[in-house]
């Protein structure tokens, strides 16, 4: 669960990171231009930029000055001494720099102390306000227009200063707008997208792993949980009981008939094996159990591998926690308990022939005691029966389908991947080989790898496949 949550969080974070990265290069991408405005302060008809302001963001700047409608505006660029000399003692607004990216800092221009020898300062001061700087020989760039004027300037070394002046009687200082082009980089795009992708992949892996584990656990859980009433519970212990308890009272134990009785002929002493081999063969058993589900179901070579892998991981996770549960056969009986009922109802089912060799007494005995046990189980877990029905239906369809389709499916391996869970039961009897004997192990091995199944599979296959699919799902 924690894994899944973590996985989900990681995926989310990854997506967010990707989104942030993309946004940083699109929505939040800085504008290609920096536009900053300066509102004049105080009296005066002039606005002056400090040296360096024109080249603040980039070398090329477009200056536009806007005054009241119809009032001529003049923009000039000159050396700082020339501009300040031209202004003389007149009041003016001084643009000191960028306050933020949209606003220029403006101060009231301090009347410069008259430098020595600047005789004309007083003359300038006496000049009427609204004087027009246009036409002076000192400027290196100038433009004038009514209302608003625009000037382009490419910065060059030196203290170049812009002077914007409202011209005429009662003129007002214009509002300045400086526009610089800017090269915008998106340094966060690819790092963010890359990191996001990594996060998503990591998270996805975690999530999938977590989901698998959770599902496998859940798959276990219902069997135990639903069966908690009785069938599963007993079923879970069933094999052990069957194996460990000498299986002697086969007749009494509803589960034994199929599993134990069926094979008892083959293995003379099923009772002996469990005690010895229970530990030693537990792995094998588990493998066999898992594999029996896998290969028999798929009927192909690939699936067993998947089954194995799956089983192993499952074994790993399950082993430390619930050694009992590890023995999947536990589950299987629960599964086949229900089919068992069906089987009884439908004697013509494919596997019955396989069981046929078993003395008829067993079935004869078995159905009676098993029925009561099985019924409640199906009743308690109706979905099982539904699943089974579906499986049967599919099996029939599969049987109807030609060999080519099946082969195709086998090749593509699509069957195991999509087949719904099917009754585990049919497989169990067929594969609940007695592993204590070489013959049983061989049978299990054959079953696992699908040997010897094909001939019988023609008839028995469809049903046999199902368990695996359920596991593989």
């Amino acid at each position: 669960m924690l894994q899944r949550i973590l996985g989900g969080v990681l995926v989310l974070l990854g997506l967010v990171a990707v989104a942030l990265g993309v946004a940083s290069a699109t929505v939040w991408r800085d504008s290609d231009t920096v536009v900053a405005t300066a509102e004049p302060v105080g009296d005066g008809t002039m606005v002056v930029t400090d040296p360096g302001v024109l080249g603040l963001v980039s070398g090329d700047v477009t200056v536009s000055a806007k005054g009241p409608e119809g009032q001529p505006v003049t923009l000039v660029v000159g050396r700082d001494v020339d501009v300040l000399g031209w202004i003389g003692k007149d009041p003016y607004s001084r643009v000191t720099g960028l306050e933020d990216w949209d606003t220029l800092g403006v101060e009231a221009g301090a009347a410069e102390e008259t430098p020595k020898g600047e005789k004309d300062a007083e003359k300038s001061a006496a000049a009427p306000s609204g004087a027009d700087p246009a036409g002076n020989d000192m400027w290196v760039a100038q433009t004038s227009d009514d209302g608003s004027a625009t000037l382009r300037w490419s910065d060059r070394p030196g203290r170049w200063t812009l002077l914007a002046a409202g011209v005429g009687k009662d003129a007002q200082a214009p509002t300045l707008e400086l526009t610089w082009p800017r090269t915008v980089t998106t340094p966060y795009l690819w790092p963010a997208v890359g990191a996001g992708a990594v996060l998503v992949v990591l998270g996805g892996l975690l999530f999938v792993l977590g989901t698998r584990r959770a599902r496998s656990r859940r798959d276990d859980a219902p069997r135990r949980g639903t069966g908690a009433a009785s069938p599963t519970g007993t079923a879970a212990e069933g094999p052990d009981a069957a194996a460990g308890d000498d299986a002697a009272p086969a007749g009494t134990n509803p589960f034994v008939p199929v599993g134990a009785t069926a094979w008892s002929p083959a293995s003379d002493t099923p009772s002996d094996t469990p005690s010895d081999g229970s530990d030693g063969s537990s792995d094998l058993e588990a493998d066999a159990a898992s594999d029996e589900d896998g290969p028999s179901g798929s009927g192909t070579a690939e699936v067993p591998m998947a089954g194995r892998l799956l089983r192993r991981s499952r074994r790993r996770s399950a082993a430390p926690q619930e050694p009992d549960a590890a023995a999947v056969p536990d589950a299987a009986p629960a599964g086949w308990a229900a089919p068992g009922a069906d089987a009884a109802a439908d004697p013509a089912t494919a596997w019955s022939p396989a069981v046929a060799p078993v003395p008829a007494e067993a079935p004869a005995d078995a159905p009676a005691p098993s029925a009561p046990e099985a019924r409640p189980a199906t009743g308690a877990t109706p979905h099982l029966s539904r699943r089974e029905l579906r499986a049967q239906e599919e099996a029939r369809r599969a049987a109807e389908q030609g060999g080519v389709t099946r082969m195709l499916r086998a090749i593509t391996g699509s069957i195991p991947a999509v087949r719904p869970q099917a009754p585990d039961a049919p497989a169990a009897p067929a594969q609940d080989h007695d592993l204590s004997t070489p013959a049983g192990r061989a049978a299990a091995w054959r079953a696992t790898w699908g040997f010897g199944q094909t001939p019988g599979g023609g008839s028995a296959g469809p049903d046999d496949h199902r368990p695996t699919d359920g596991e593989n799902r």
Partner: protein
Amino acid sequence: MNRRTTRRGLAAVSAVVVGSVLLAGCTEDVPQPQAGEPFDGPVLTEEQETKVLSAVSSTVQKADKKLDPAALKSRVTGPALEVRASQLDVAKSRDDSSLVTEIPDESQQLVIPTTSTWPRTSYSITVPTEDLETPRLVAFEQDSARAAYKMWSWVQLLPGVVMPAFADAGIGSEAVASDDDSLAATPADALNQYADVVTLGSEESSFAKGFDLPEEDLAARVQGDAKNVRSTPGFEDADGEFEAKFSARKDDIRSVRTADGGALVMGALDGRTTLTVEEEGEVPPFTETQKALLGDAGLTNELEVEYTDMVALYVPAKDSDEKIRPLGYSHVATAASN
């Protein structure tokens, strides 16, 4: 396993957090203005100076065409305005502008000052005129920051004169104060001494030895004119007296440093010649200009002509072996009376 994934998850989370902090930090600080180096070069570029020249030239040409001295004022000032206005008046009364000095607007050398205050004076040496008269040395002055550059003075360079070397227009030349004492003589003194030389002639002036006077200098011209007047037939008989007096104007001095540490000094001399003959005699104007200036006034036994002379001197540095050299002059009568 779980612990590991947890740790990995934590790392991922922290990575994302750091990333977003970085993203948030992408609002860079606004740049601060970097004031460049203070200007210490020429106050005008050559381009600007060339524009000034053509602006002045076109103004002057327009005035010349209309023979309207008032039209000069926007681009002409100082001694140049006096002289030019007088020339235009004379041309108007004579209905002939042949005596108006031609000033080419094409420059062969610009001398641009580095003065950061005002007034500022720049200089231009023009190309020879179409009539192959010698080039003019013209001074332009910007009186105040809001004023335009105006032609302040011009002189015709002496034939064969060797001009001192000036700093390149791209570097700029230092203006020299009229009382600068790093020179063989301060610009003011040099002009005063030169005025004395012009008045008295190279032989009589005590300052003449400080000057390297070419043959076609203003002093020689004035002395030559005086000699001509005095040698006019009947001058002696009529008890004629001719007197020429030149003095330097104190305020009209503009100087700029030359490459060798000397200075080019431009100034104006006020000249006055007085010619008197016996009571019964009559003194006719000697030149067309004088005639025009005199106008309809009847002749008397006295003729007084005023000149506004613009001169250019080269004043060497103090420790130089060179003497002060006249470079050019403009000798124009601006008033006459009798």
